[in-house]
């Protein structure tokens, strides 16, 4: 008796809460990305980033060994493991006119977001973008 009314009530509440949640998700639709914690305005696709050509500085946020194996031509290494060592090197090569495109291994990795956030907050850099799909996506579109 208790169990059946408990389940019925819980289902009813769960359904009721779904309605305003859905409305709110539609309302907030353009303020976030369902694919990544980075706002859509701070993401860039491989095609867009390639189109920037010389106006983009590529940053590889993957670990050193992965960078050494292969990377986007001209990309600079900047990972959190050696942040204090690599940041000055990056800043020396950085140009305010150029956009910064950061990538890590794939869609699911977090390093590019972390590095992008630190560059914005700690180094106060504008025009910092995270590459959608990361290195995997770069490889796919390069074939």
């Amino acid at each position: 008796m208790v169990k059946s009314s408990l389940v019925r009530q819980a289902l009813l509440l769960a359904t009721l809460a779904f309605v305003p949640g859905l409305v709110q998700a539609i309302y907030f639709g353009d303020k976030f990305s369902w694919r990544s914690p980075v706002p859509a305005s701070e993401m860039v696709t491989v095609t867009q980033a390639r189109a920037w050509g010389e106006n983009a500085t590529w940053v590889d946020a993957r670990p050193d060994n992965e960078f050494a194996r292969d990377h986007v031509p001209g990309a600079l290494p900047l990972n959190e493991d050696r942040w204090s060592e690599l940041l000055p090197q990056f800043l020396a090569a950085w140009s305010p006119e150029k956009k910064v495109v950061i990538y890590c291994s794939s869609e699911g990795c977090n390093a590019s977001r972390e590095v992008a956030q630190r560059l914005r907050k700690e180094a106060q850099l504008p025009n910092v973008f995270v590459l959608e799909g990361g290195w995997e996506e770069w490889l796919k579109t390069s074939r």
Partner: protein
Amino acid sequence: MVSEMNQPALNSQLSTIPQFVWRVVDVIVGRIFIYAGAIKVLDPVQFATDIDNYKILPWTIGVGLAFYLPWLEIFCGLALILRRLYLGGLSILTALVAVFLAATIAAKIRGLDITCGCFGHASQNWNFPAHLALDLAILGALLALSFRVVSGNRLQNAV
């Protein structure tokens, strides 16, 4: 009514607590969840980031939960205060707090520096013991309310 008359026979410490005390607990716990839900409704993207910090769920699911869970907390909080769909609200909130407690402890064990986001910015500087103490207190209150309902129902069925 029947359960009130048979309270001494129940031989339970919880059943000797006056009815109004339970109502006060209902209202306090209900208001906590309404407040916690309302704060998160105002900034769902921040709540999604807080969920993501636990590194348990993919971002897409975290975003979905960030829009859904605050409203679920509000509705369940209202259920406790208004005593409508009471059992359902109580069980959902108990499950939510239990899952949240487990996730918090797991995050701590994994060495994650998390912001739970339970009470928006008000709780962002709370340390782990403070989070744990509050969550355990809320879970204790919810379990006590559940026990009261179950024991009251047993008596009604027995009479």
